[in-house]
């Protein structure tokens, strides 16, 4: 059985608003696909389409090899859904929620109870297991929600912003659960607003912004794409002379930062050694030097245009977009509407 996720050209409109405007997604079997984007980017809509909750206006998607439109029942047998919009029953206890899901999935009473007990232990809910879920704290609720989605040991798991609003400790616990699921062989599609989360968990990241894919790649590729590496040096003395050498070798005028930090973008990997040789020849001692990649935060900011723009404006005029994401955006403009 394949547990892959593939989507091509997903389109979804809500009234005048394009929630998704030609989004392609692909997750290999056993990998984590991180769907990253600001609020309202269309992440949840994408998950809801893949989890058979929403029918797309255009495009197609296969989950575990089954078309979400033609064989939703087959898809539902493979998936687990957790996050913002799939919720637990607040009036039932944590244990009752878990038993109910087990029974709905066809387990007999004792099997459903045993499975519930195991998940309660695994998710550290023993003390709260027999209290109504409505009394749970935010973190406990998310843990229960995740546990509920894992009752049937799904081979494909959708997690829609599973850690939004949680404190770092609970977040780390949930990350551990995601890693366990991967170790078990499951495929995970995870949406998040947190770069760190995508960086930590995802094998591949798709950046969605205003219903379109604005970039995709591994976390490292995205960081690389977001901007050039920068060579940063802090000379102990002779800062002027060091800056001049930097300029001569790289052919670019260096930027003077705080605390005597001098930096310059470098595209050619042979340049930094050349810079260090010249500085050494000149007898300049460096207090600090680094070849720094941009953080994923910087990548995110340079790839996503957060302020909403009027739809009439051409996307080409939007500042701050990397030109590197053209392939993903190309088919989006020609989103065709299927017969409704």
């Amino acid at each position, binding site marked *: 059985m394949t547990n892959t996720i593939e989507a091509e050209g997903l389109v979804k409109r809500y009234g005048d608003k394009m929630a998704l405007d030609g989004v392609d997604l692909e997750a290999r079997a056993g990998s984590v696909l991180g769907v990253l984007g600001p609020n309202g980017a269309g992440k949840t809509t994408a998950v809801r389409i893949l989890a*058979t909750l929403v029918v797309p206006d255009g495009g197609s998607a296969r989950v575990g090899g089954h078309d979400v439109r033609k064989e939703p029942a087959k898809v*539902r047998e493979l998936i687990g859904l957790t996050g913002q919009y799939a919720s637990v*029953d*607040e*009036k039932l206890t944590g244990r009752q929620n878990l038993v109910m899901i087990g029974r709905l*999935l066809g387990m007999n009473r004792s099997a459903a109870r045993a499975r519930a007990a195991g998940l309660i232990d695994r998710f550290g809910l023993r003390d709260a297991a027999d209290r109504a879920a409505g009394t749970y704290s935010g973190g406990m609720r998310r843990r229960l929600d995740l546990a509920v989605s894992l009752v049937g040991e799904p081979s494909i798991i959708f997690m829609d912003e599973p850690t939004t609003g949680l404190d770092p400790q609970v977040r780390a616990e949930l990350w551990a659960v995601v890693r366990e699921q991967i170790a078990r062989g499951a495929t995970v599609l995870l949406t998040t607003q947190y770069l760190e989360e995508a960086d930590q968990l995802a094998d591949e990241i798709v950046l969605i912004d205003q219903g379109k894919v604005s970039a995709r790649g591994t976390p490292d590729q995205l960081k690389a794409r977001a901007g050039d590496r920068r060579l940063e040096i802090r000379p102990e003395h002779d800062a002027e002379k060091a800056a001049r050498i930097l300029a001569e070798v790289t052919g670019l005028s260096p930027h003077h930062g705080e605390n005597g930090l001098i930096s310059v973008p470098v595209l050619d990997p042979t340049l930094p050694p050349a810079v260090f040789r010249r500085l050494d020849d000149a007898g300049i001692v460096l207090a600090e030097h680094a070849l720094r990649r941009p953080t994923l935060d910087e990548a995110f900011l340079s790839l996503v245009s957060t302020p909403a723009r009027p739809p009439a404006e051409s996307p080409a005029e939007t500042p701050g977009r990397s030109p590197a994401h053209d392939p993903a955006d190309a088919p989006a403009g020609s989103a065709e509407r299927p017969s409704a």
Partner: protein
Amino acid sequence: MTTRNTFAQGMTLTWRSLVPLRNQPGELIQLLLQPIFMIVIFVVVFGAMSGDQAGAVQHLLPGVLTQVALTQTITTGLRLAEDIGNGVFDRFRSMPIARSAPLMGRILADTATMTLTVAVALLVGAVVGFRIRTSPLEALGGVALLLVFTLALGWVSAWLGLRAKSAASMQGMATAVLLPLTFGSTALIPAANLPSVLQWWAALNPVSHLADSLRALFTGGPAGAHIWITLGWAAAIAAAFVPLAVRAYSRRIR
């Protein structure tokens, strides 16, 4: 999806709707207090005002029972709207279960609580002096008629709940439907005492016929055509609203 699976899932979801009554004593108390309050207010207070307490209790209790049962039909749509609003519905939809199971569970659970409410109301009625003067068979017939009619109204409630934007708006709409039905009827006030504009409506109103049927089936006297008219209305309401609710449901659940 086999029929057996569908039935098992429906029963699991019925359990899920009933178990909060056991979990939280507050839920159960709230369910039981409603008939108690209504009976105390209408039967005892209005009965005392009329002077003939015993006669008033015999006349009013079937009417109050009707009102209590009708008010409770709101639950069906309200809980459906809540499940849709807080994402529980989406959880069920993402699972490999029969599409009909959540609706089936809801209706079965509400029928069970309705039976409980009617039993409690009759018990409280006995405490305040209401006496069933007919045969057990006729009395059971009365209970059955009430359950059949509220089940039909439950589908109106379900339809409203499935179409509503929120649980609160569902409650508002349901109240707007129920008020003219319960108060514009002969359930509590004899037709002769109603303003003339309301008299034609009360004569048509199925709730009048339901209340008069219950009176006849519990305390004796001629039921006349009331039972048949009530059943006719129940059939008509069900014929109109079961398909409407199922359609609204399939839209929500596809």
